[in-house]
């Protein structure tokens, strides 16, 4: 009986519940007078205020009233519906009335938190409550739609976060597609030498995971590939993936690399991307020895065969009867269906050329931290030797923190990892060269397990720490001792005067930035970015790996600067969320779909082009439009567009919205 439709049963019994949210709401809004006012409104049977409506006792209160007072409509004035609408809908369900007989009034985010004038804030709360009471009485019973979930996942990005997420899902027996745009997985971590604070070598802990990914029965690894289109909705995404031609047939190449040795180029001529241009590679190459997959790539930009077509093709000879090389290879596209998507597209490092004062690009011995990672990496261009451009060992090295971080002229945020990796580099520099190392920092930020201890260790090792943001790196000698050196000028803010420190090498601890194409990616996957350009999580605390698009999760540095432990933890979390979704086997969709009132439809067809999902069809014999509920995503554009007003949208019917508009404006 309570699950009734007011249009047939005028007997609407509304309960209004005003939440204090501690002092968050009650501090600004006079909740008592709001609930008293609500009680006076037509149709309202009971109105209460309570400290925390979302708490168990709060929920119990509503449930009890529904049972005892036969309420059939509920208004909750509390925080944003995006937080607790689901919570309170469950309450209604438990109490045996339709979950959609509920209207949430946002008197926290939209009221108490943004206004200072208590009188006005309280009045606003009353207006909103009044509108909700009027609206809710028109609510119709609705049922969420159940759709099955495709039991597979797509992971975008093959860095440590993507790798970990993919493995976690695959280990649980889920089918995973891992898409990476570079020819190999591994991401930034693969470029590092050691990792802080434990100093275990990055390769030793990463490469095993990489090879497992490459060989896992449940993982379909697509490198040198990019997602080009995403369609569908939670549980049923259709994704198109483009494979760039590597001019080598994956299944045939066994990674023997004889083609590389045989290439007509005896020496590499092209700057090696993986080594950030610190070494040269040939037109046919393997990004780095532990690359996964172990498949070579041919770069058409530099390969003679592509340029002139007149190459001896010694590589093909070398490949012999394996016939793995195919100069004719074309770009190809795969289309897959997945139930859920994890984005782990990572970050890019700040380009220090944007800050000319540090002389990057002008002075040869000014390096970025990432370049130094390659230099000290045993598999790097110098075989792990940290040397200057003239291949001598530096006797003194300056490490400049916060380059492209904490600076409103470039990036306002703290990149979180630079302090720790600068400490790591300081240690390695001393270990490899015995050089004097000067760290220039603004604040030393080492929160994290074992991090502060690592800082202590560096202090103990005799590294200099100078608190001051560096003003300039120059080669101008103001003193004989500065001849031929790079001079770092900064205030030693603890000493209270400016110091000039001559060094042989400068390392710029560059900050982390969103990927250059983050905006395109987020559009493709229909999620949002925070103002800085990082992917936006659904809730900073309660839903850190979810997005506002159901079934799409984020992991790693694409959501914000993160170190390896955090990225891995987040990847695990994202995988768990995805798994929970898949294992539920069904997902419930909001019933906000549109439908046509057949006998009112004039058959003008003007709605049909309005729908981006082709959900509206036209039946020629009935001369009426028809909406496919499964395809309809519930935007309501066709409803507003229908000239005869014969399309309605569940939960957003014109009458309901009119009632709300007139409700907020009417002064009782």
């Amino acid at each position, binding site marked *: 009986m309570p699950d009734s439709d007011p249009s047939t049963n005028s007997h609407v019994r509304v309960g209004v519940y005003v939440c204090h949210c501690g002092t968050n709401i009650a501090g600004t809004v006079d909740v008592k007078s709001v609930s008293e006012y609500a009680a006076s409104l037509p149709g309202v049977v009971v109105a209460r205020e309570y400290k925390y409506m979302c708490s168990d006792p709060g929920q119990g209160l509503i449930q009890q009233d529904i049972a005892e007072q036969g309420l059939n409509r509920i208004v909750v004035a509390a925080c944003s519906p995006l937080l607790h609408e689901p919570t309170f809908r469950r309450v209604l369900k438990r109490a045996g009335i339709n979950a959609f007989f509920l209207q949430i009034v946002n008197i926290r985010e939209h009221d108490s938190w943004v206004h200072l004038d208590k009188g006005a804030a309280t009045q606003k709360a009353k207006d909103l409550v009044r509108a909700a009471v009027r609206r809710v009485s028109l609510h119709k019973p609705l049922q969420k739609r159940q759709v099955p979930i495709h039991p597979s996942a797509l992971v975008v990005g093959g860095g440590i976060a993507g790798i970990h997420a993919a493995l976690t899902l695959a280990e649980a027996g889920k089918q995973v597609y891992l898409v990476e745009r570079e020819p190999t997985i591994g991401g930034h971590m693969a470029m590092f030498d050691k990792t802080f604070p434990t100093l275990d070598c990055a390769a030793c802990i990463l490469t095993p995971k990489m090879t497992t990914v490459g060989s896992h029965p449940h993982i379909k690894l697509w490198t040198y590939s990019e997602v080009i289109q995403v369609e569908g909705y939670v549980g049923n995404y259709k994704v198109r993936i483009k494979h760039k031609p590597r001019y080598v047939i994956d299944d045939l190449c066994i990674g023997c690399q004889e083609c590389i040795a045989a290439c007509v180029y005896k020496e590499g001529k092209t700057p090696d991307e993986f080594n950030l241009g610190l070494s040269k590679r040939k037109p046919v190459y393997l990004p780095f020895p532990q690359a996964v997959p172990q498949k070579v790539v041919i770069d058409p930009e530099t390969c003679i065969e592509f340029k002139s077509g007149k190459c001896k093709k010694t590589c093909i000879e070398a490949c012999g009867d394996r016939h793995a090389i195919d100069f004719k290879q074309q770009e190809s596209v795969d289309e897959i269906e997945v139930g859920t998507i994890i984005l782990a597209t990572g970050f890019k490092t700040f380009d220090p050329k944007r800050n000319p*004062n540090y002389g990057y690009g002008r002075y040869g011995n000014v390096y970025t931290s990432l370049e130094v990672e390659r230099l000290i990496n045993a598999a790097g261009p110098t075989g792990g030797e940290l040397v200057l451009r003239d291949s001598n060992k530096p006797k003194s090295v300056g490490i400049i923190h*916060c380059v492209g971080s*904490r*600076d*409103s*002229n470039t990036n306002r945020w703290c990149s979180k990892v630079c302090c720790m990796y600068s400490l790591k580099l300081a240690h390695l520099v001393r270990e490899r060269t015995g050089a004097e190392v000067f760290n220039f920092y*603004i604040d030393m930020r080492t929160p994290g397990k074992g991090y502060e201890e690592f800082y202590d260790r560096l202090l103990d090792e005799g590294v200099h720490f100078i*608190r*001051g*943001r*560096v*003003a*300039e790196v120059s080669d101008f000698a103001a003193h004989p001792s500065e001849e031929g050196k790079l001079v770092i*000028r*900064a*205030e*030693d*803010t603890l000493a*209270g*005067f*400016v110091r000039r420190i001559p060094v042989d090498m400068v390392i710029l601890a560059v900050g982390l930035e969103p990927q250059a194409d983050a905006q395109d990616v987020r559009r493709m996957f229909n999620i949002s970015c925070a103002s800085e350009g990082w992917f936006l999580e659904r809730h900073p605390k309660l839903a850190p790996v979810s997005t506002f698009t159901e079934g799409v999760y984020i992991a790693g540095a694409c959501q914000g600067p993160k170190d390896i432990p955090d990225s891995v933890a987040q990847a695990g979390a994202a995988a768990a969320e995805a798994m929970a979704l898949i294992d539920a086997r069904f997902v419930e969709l909001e019933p906000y779909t549109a439908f046509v009132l057949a006998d009112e439809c004039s058959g003008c067809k003007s709605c049909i082009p309005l729908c981006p999902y082709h959900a509206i069809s036209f039946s020629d014999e009935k001369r009426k439009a028809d909406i496919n509920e499964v395809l309809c995503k519930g935007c309501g554009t066709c409803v507003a567009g229908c000239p005869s007003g014969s399309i309605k949208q569940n939960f957003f019917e014109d009458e309901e919205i009119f009632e709300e508009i007139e409700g907020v404006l009417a002064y009782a």
Partner: protein
Amino acid sequence: MNLQRTVKFEAETDREFAQWIAHEIGGEKLRECLQCGLCSGTCPLSLYMDKTPRRLMYLAREGFKGDVLSSLSIWLCTSCYGCVIDCPKQINITGMMYSLKQRAIEEKFYPPRFPIPVMARQFSRMVRSSGRITESWLVVQVFARTAIWRLLGMGKLGLRLLRTGRMRLVRDKVEHRHDISQLMDAVQVAKKELVA
């Protein structure tokens, strides 16, 4: 050896001063200062400053009026704006320096015969009276009031300037000189009205 107490009692801070600077040009964003010291590092004159710009900003924010206004650093600022364009918090440090200079002059916070404020004052007097500056006269007036002996050392340069026609002896003036003084007075009036 004479030891001095260095401890600062809260009572010695001047909240009014801190409030004042926070509302002066350049002081608006003072609270955001990270104390990173970039300003001091960029400053070409900080090599000579008793207190670096960074310290001045901090002391001013905390209301150590005496320490700030009696610092010679505020006089060394040549307003080259190097710090302003580099400041990670985009604080108008040069603007703040002007505000401090003005306050220091109002409250006589500088050593006797200290040339810079004298120069500033002579400058403004000359502008008020003639509307324009005649450099040669300005120099003479400043040194006459601060370091007369230095004038002697300058004969040679003076001669050269004369010879190359770069030293004017006649004072340059604007036509409507009363306009200038009237303008200056009007500013003072407007200022008072605003205060009242």
